[in-house]
């Protein structure tokens, strides 16, 4: 019987079946569930690493030592780990190394939608791309075999739809894979220029051999059909194209780098016109065009955003490849209220951004749930870049003579991921930057994983690192810890810090409601005292809405707290100027 699995579950299963011994990752949508599922297999050592580069270095080390190893990350994680990808391409390995890059076309939960197929070409390593969960599982095993056969790291690229979509998978057993002995060989594993020069020709030779493999392997297969339209596709886009062009001829590419030039030519000679349906960049298209083959791709199918069956169909209809069909898609439902992601009711980050907004400081924020501080009504944030950018950008703005005070804000997981070197820089150069760590003791955004600050590992208990002690140890003189719920103290501490002429760190304990509870029951509006002033509307708590009842004098709707949503944090109570909110009862400890 087949099992329904997401692409990520299937990759974890594939790693287990392939005899993987070591797997490491840093969480990131859409890749996170890979390691969460690997962790269920007790015969694999698995960990959340502090960041993607550490995860990849660790996997490389394990492969050098002779055990099959895997590192998994989201697309931007591979930017962080790219240095390690490049040197491992040169050194090759001993046992197999597989790197999963989970791209996010459409930016469901990312700051950009880069196409990581370019990394395969750039770093000169092979890349496989599955179209469903069965292939996701099978390709992991294949990737390990290729890695050992050609002495190369192998990339597997998924996208949000292949990572998170579920489909039926046939399971098999774990392969018995022997540990390979480690033999010291610095000219292969120690990349000083003299040795690296000798490795580069090996890399070029390897890619030639892999090209030959790509020609012969059935992961790249011609699926003959109607000769008037020939479609080259890979990944999720292949499935959409299959849906929309059920009778066309297809060249399905399971290996997206290196490309099988001979097979592409053969396919092109069998069909009247070649089209490439691919998500994001014209990666295959440009390579096909370089072969002198007439091909169309991005002139028809969009470069922006993720594809979908209707986007593929609409583009094809517009280009005259398909007749228009009446699908009744268009529909006017009237104006629709937006429902963007919001900080949860009771999230401690809300308190911090409420104060920052009130202070009108420039906020250089970072990646995490607290990035939502940029959204209305809080609207408190000026800049967000990538993990750890907050501190460096804040320093640059300060040094360039910014007219207002500015602060860097980053989360606990982000602090350990990429904040540390930036803080070292601030201390070293004595740049008067205010670093606020909103410490909720979890990696909230990606689904509440542990991190070095919480000390909770992928498997439970590890050792926690005290952020304030780290800052002091690095030489920050002004380090203060405060609870986000003490609004007045938070404000006072930040006001003092921005006046200093040296770097400072403020660690704000801010509750994530998935981790910790507030100590009161739900708050209530005292209807006769509420005059609809709208102040509490401006904190953006999802438990607060406009009630049906209007204030007699102002004719404005009074506030309403939905009891099933309120978690009793008390921010609305602190904000209300009319004492119109009644605190919830104190919870009795169970």
């Amino acid at each position, binding site marked *: 019987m087949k099992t*329904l699995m997401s692409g990520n579950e299937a990759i974890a299963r594939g790693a287990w079946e392939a005899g993987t011994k070591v797997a490491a990752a840093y969480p990131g949508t859409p890749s996170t569930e890979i390691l969460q599922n690997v962790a269920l297999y007790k015969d694999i050592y698995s960990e959340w690493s502090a960041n993607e580069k550490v995860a990849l270095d660790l996997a490389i080390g394990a492969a050098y030592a002779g055990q099959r190893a895997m590192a998994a990350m989201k697309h931007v994680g591979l930017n962080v780990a790219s240095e390690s990808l490049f040197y491992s391409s040169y050194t090759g390995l001993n046992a197999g190394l597989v790197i999963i890059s989970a791209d996010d076309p459409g930016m469901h939960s990312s700051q950009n939608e880069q196409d990581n197929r370019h990394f395969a070409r750039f770093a000169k390593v092979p890349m496989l791309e599955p179209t469903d969960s069965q292939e996701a599982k099978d390709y992991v095993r294949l990737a390990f075999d290729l890695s050992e056969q050609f002495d190369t790291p192998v990339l597997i690229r998924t996208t949000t739809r292949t990572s998170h979509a*579920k489909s039926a998978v046939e399971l098999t057993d774990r392969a018995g894979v022997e540990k390979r002995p480690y033999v010291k060989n610095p000219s292969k594993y120690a990349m000083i220029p003299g040795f690296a020069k000798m490795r580069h020709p090996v890399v070029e030779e390897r890619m030639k051999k892999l090209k030959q493999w790509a020609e012969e392997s059935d992961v790249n297969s011609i699926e003959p059909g109607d000769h008037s339209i020939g479609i080259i596709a890979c990944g999720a886009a292949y499935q959409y194209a299959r849906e929309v062009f059920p009778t066309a001829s297809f060249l399905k590419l399971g290996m997206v780098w290196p490309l099988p030039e001979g097979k592409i030519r053969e396919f092109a000679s069998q069909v009247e016109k070649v089209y490439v349906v691919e998500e994001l960049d014209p990666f295959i298209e440009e390579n096909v065009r370089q072969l002198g083959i007439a091909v169309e791709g991005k002139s028809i199918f969009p470069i922006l955003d993720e594809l979908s069956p209707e986007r593929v169909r609409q583009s094809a209809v517009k280009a005259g490849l398909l007749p228009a069909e009446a699908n009744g898609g268009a529909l006017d439902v*009237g104006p629709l209220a937006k*429902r963007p*992601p919001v900080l949860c009711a009771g999230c401690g980050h809300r308190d911090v951004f409420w104060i920052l907004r009130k202070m009108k400081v420039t906020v250089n924020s970072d990646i995490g749930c607290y990035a939502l501080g940029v959204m209305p009504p809080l609207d408190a944030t000026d800049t967000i870049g990538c993990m750890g950018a907050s501190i460096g950008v804040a320093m640059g703005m300060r040094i360039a003579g910014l007219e207002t005070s500015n602060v860097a804000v980053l989360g606990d997981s982000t602090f350990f991921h990429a904040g540390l070197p930036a803080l070292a820089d601030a201390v070293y150069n004595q740049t008067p930057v205010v670093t606020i760590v909103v410490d909720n003791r979890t990696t909230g955004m990606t689904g509440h994983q542990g991190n070095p600050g919480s000390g909770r590992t992928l498997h439970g208990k590890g050792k926690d690192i005290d952020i304030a002690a780290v800052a002091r140890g690095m030489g920050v003189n002004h380090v203060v810890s405060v609870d986000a719920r003490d609004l007045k103290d938070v404000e006072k501490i930040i006001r003092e810090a921005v006046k200093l002429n040296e770097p400072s760190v403020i660690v704000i304990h801010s509750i994530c409601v998935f981790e910790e509870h507030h100590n009161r029951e739900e708050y209530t509006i005292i209807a006769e005292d509420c005059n609809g002033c709208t102040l509490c*509307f401006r904190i953006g708590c999802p438990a607060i809405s406009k009630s049906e009842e209007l204030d007699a004098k102002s004719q404005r709707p009074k506030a309403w707290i939905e009891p099933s949503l309120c978690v009793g944090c008390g921010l609305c109570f602190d904000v209300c100027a009319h004492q119109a909110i009644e605190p919830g009862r104190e919870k009795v400890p169970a």
Partner: protein
Amino acid sequence: METTTTNFLLAGVGGQGTLLASDIVAEVGLHTGLDVKKSEVHGMSQRGGAVTSHVRWGTRVASPLCEMGKVDFFIAQEMLEALRWLAYLKPGGTIVLNKQRWVPISTTYGQDIYPAEEHVMATVSGRAGKVLALDAIAISEELGNRRAANSVLLGALSTHLDTAVEEWLAVIEKNVPQKHKEVNRQCFLAGREGDWSYKK
């Protein structure tokens, strides 16, 4: 390649259990021997954002995403979300509508307006051939647990599919914790029994 597929779309608000409900629909399809694909986007952990999940049953399913205007069964767990994704339902398709209002903050701090129930019902009826409208939370609350509301909706949905009741119950019981099995079973049966047809 001749293929017949049955397309489902589930839409709700983060925290309503959209993903679990769609897992159940997908697994029921697999149990009955069909090829199944399902797609959703998760990874935003905050509560309260819009969530959708696509499920497709068929002899051979290619795309995990349904096409707009081609969904046979639309399970809307919330009224505003029913409107937001209504264009996915094929004209004349079936909608199972949970009559819950979950007001987004854009209507509190901003100018957005939550749609009136009459508007929702009129728009939905204009598109669907069959509207099943029910207050699943009230029903599940009465049966002992408001968090089992989705089983009520699945029960209502199941009356419009050929799949045997036992298949549904087996998959539901497999997917919910031991202590909630009985209430989910009762909720599913309550969803099956009522007549929820909404008449214009």
